[in-house]
C-alpha cells in the first residue's frame, strides 16, 4: 500500500476531528480533540519518516510526543479544578 495514501487519509481524519476542537462545548472536549489530533499528526510524522527513509523525522516525532503528553496533562490539571463549575454557573 502506498504510504502517501495513508498520510492523506490520516490528515483527512484529523480535519474531521477539528469539528470537535472548534465546536466542543467544554474546554475538556477540546482537549480530548487536541490529544486525538496530536497523535494523528505524530503518526503522520512517523509515516513521513518512513516515506523519505530518514530517521530524523522519528526523532522529531518522539519530542513531539513528549510535548503533547505534557501539554494535555497540564491542561487537564488546570481545567479540572474543583469548584469551577459553580463559578461558571454563577
Amino acid at each position, binding site marked *: 500500500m502506498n504510504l502517501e495514501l495513508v498520510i492523506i487519509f490520516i490528515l483527512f481524519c484529523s480535519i474531521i476531528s477539528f469539528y470537535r476542537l472548534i465546536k466542543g462545548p467544554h474546554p475538556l472536549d477540546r482537549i480530548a480533540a487536541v490529544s486525538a489530533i496530536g497523535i494523528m499528526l505524530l503518526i503522520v510524522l512517523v509515516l513521513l519518516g518512513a516515506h*523519505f527513509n*530518514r530517521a*530524523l*523525522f522519528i526523532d522529531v516525532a518522539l519530542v513531539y510526543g513528549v510535548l503533547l503528553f505534557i501539554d494535555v496533562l497540564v491542561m487537564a490539571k488546570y481545567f479540572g479544578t474543583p469548584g469551577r463549575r459553580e463559578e461558571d454557573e454563577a
Partner: protein
Amino acid sequence: MILLYPTIVLLICMGLYTVLTQTNMIKIIIGISIVESSIILLLGAMAYFPGAAAPVLDHPFELVADPLPQALGLTAIVINASTTAIMLALVIKLHNRYDTLNIHEIKKLRG
C-alpha cells in the same frame, strides 16, 4: 503553496485586530502571540520549495531546503517566548494588585 501567503497575512491581521480591540490583557497577549507565530510560519514557508529535503545532510541530496530561515525562526521563537514570559509575569502582578484583567478598569482604578 498559493494559499500559504494569504493565510499568513490573514493571521497577522487577525492578531493585530485582537490587540487593537480587546481589553482583556490575556487576550492581548494571545493576539501578539498569533502575530509572532505567523511570522515564524512565514519563515518556515520561505525555507521550503517543492522537492526539497530537510537540511540534515546524512547522505547527499539534490535539493536542500534553505537552512537559514529555519535557524532564524529558532532564534525568533526563543525571543518571543522570553517576551511572552515577561508579559505574563506583569499580568500576574497587575492582577494581584487590582484584581481585574481589564486594562481600562486598571487605568480607571489608578485614576
